């Protein structure tokens, strides 16, 4: 990444890059520190540092944790095929709609509503829905809906969909911004159905965004605590086990190792996406330059 040609003295530019790097470092410092401690045999606050994988071995031999990992993965697997098509449809609707303000308002507001507030509202909403369906059951004799909104996987998934949809929407919107709608129009003019035009023309060009959105959903599901813990019912998720350990016994060395696993997986996936996207953009630019200026 090169510095832009500027009339400013170089030291001032370097100072600004330094400030930016310092901000990124400070934001990531808690994560780095967690990882650092997780490899110390002597744990936090020790004078000496003995490298070990012991705490990771302990984590992976913990049956409760492995079970929680399975539940979290299940939540991600169920959330993914629901939220991604929703995100795609929302982004397409936004591009075509004349009432953009309302779409943005509805889709991005969950970002602004604090987790505890939304989770509390949803919890009471689900409890009321259950009572409502019980009442309907008493009048109609149909009792099959009574337990639909009992706290469990379905309510946790709904909470996760509301939480992750804004992120999916924004990520897909960013990739869709590069897509020129004239291509779809051309395909439709040539007789392609709306689905075929989308699947064969538009989707390959926004595929990177869709896959990135999938990765984001999985990561966010693994990191989410407040909404999931209030709406999940009886089972444990990865973060709920981690938090209960942290709050009940303080940060044990295993807690550091567990936190590091979640953080490192997230950082590696996002970094991989960033690097692949950067490489692909670079290739695309090279191609465009070659087409525009074939003699250079």
């Amino acid at each position, binding site marked *: 990444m090169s510095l832009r040609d500027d009339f400013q003295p170089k030291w001032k530019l370097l100072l600004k890059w330094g400030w930016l790097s310092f*901000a*990124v470092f400070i934001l990531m410092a*808690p994560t780095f520190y967690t990882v650092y401690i997780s490899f110390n045999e002597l744990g936090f606050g020790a004078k000496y540092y003995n490298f070990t994988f012991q705490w990771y071995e302990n984590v992976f031999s913990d049956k409760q944790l492995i079970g929680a990992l399975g539940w979290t993965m299940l939540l991600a697997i169920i959330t993914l095929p629901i939220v991604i098509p929703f995100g795609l449809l929302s982004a397409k609707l936004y591009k075509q709609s004349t009432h953009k303000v309302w779409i943005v308002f509805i889709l991005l507001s969950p970002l602004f509503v604090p987790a505890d507030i939304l989770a*509390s509202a949803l919890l009471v909403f689900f409890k009321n829905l259950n009572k409502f369906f019980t009442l309907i059951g008493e009048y109609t004799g149909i009792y099959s809906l009574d337990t639909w909104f009992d706290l469990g996987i379905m309510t946790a998934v709904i909470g996760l969909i509301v939480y992750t949809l804004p992120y999916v929407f924004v990520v897909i919107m960013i990739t869709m911004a590069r897509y020129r709608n004239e291509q779809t129009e051309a395909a439709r003019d040539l007789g392609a159905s709306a689905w075929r035009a989308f699947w064969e023309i538009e989707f390959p060009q926004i595929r990177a965004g869709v896959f990135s959105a999938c990765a984001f959903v999985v990561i966010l599901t693994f*990191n989410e605590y407040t909404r999931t813990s209030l709406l999940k019912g009886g089972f444990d998720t990865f973060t709920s086990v981690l*938090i209960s350990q942290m709050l009940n016994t303080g940060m044990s060395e295993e807690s550091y190792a567990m936190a590091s696993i979640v953080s490192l997986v997230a950082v590696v996936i996002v970094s991989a996406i960033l690097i692949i996207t950067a490489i692909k953009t670079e290739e695309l630019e090279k191609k465009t330059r070659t087409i525009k200026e074939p003699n250079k």
Partner: protein
Amino acid sequence: MIIFFVLPLLLTVVWSVFERTMFWMEPAFTLFSYENFFFSSRLENFLSSMFHSSISVVCAFFIGFPIAIFIRRRVRKVAQHRVMLLFILPFMVSEIIRIFALRPILSRNGVVNSFLMDMNLIESPFSIFVFTPTGVIIGEIVSFLPFMIFSTFLALEAIPNYIFEVCADLGVNRRRMFKDMFLPLAAPGLFAGSVFIFVNGIGIALIPTILGGPGSVNAGLIATQAIIALDFPLAMAVSAIMMFTLMGLLYLGHRLFNLTKLLEPIS
């Protein structure tokens, strides 16, 4: 989203006037929950969390706005988004882990105090970094700063390059450029970022729980504690107050700055 997001939030207003029963609530019209909130120490806690969030907003502005301007002005166009994505990384790590990990970093025998003492800058360790309002403010900045940078950058991205060139050609000095160009043009982004930090600062229970110590309470914590105590109407009253605060701020922002402008660069 209307059924599972808008509706539950709107219904908090209805549930907040219900009457509390032993384990649940029953339909009625009573303002007891609001009285319970406004005429008790909860209001004081709420106002104090608003004050701390405001400080976090100001700090995030001074840290984040120069970064957003720098990325927009000095980084090559193709690299701008990549640099911005660096700030996505912290968002992808669980907020709880990041906040919890701040404890050992900021505690009396933590990394910051050890560093300051090793450098002979202080003689005894500071104890104001955790379990104090300062800890809450630090936690809010570390948690929410990226959003201030994103939203401000999005607003700045909509400014065409020729405007910078015209300013340079006319010899406009930095102070005037900042006051008359960057600040007004970035206003929608600054506003969105500020609302995000402010509302989450008063609504996320986790930060005061982990970094604020026993006296540190915000709206999110009041709502969570009310649910644990099975006082659902009170929890809903707090949620309704938060929702109105948020809606009011977003409406004000939209009227003043047209917040949809933020999505123009990506739509």
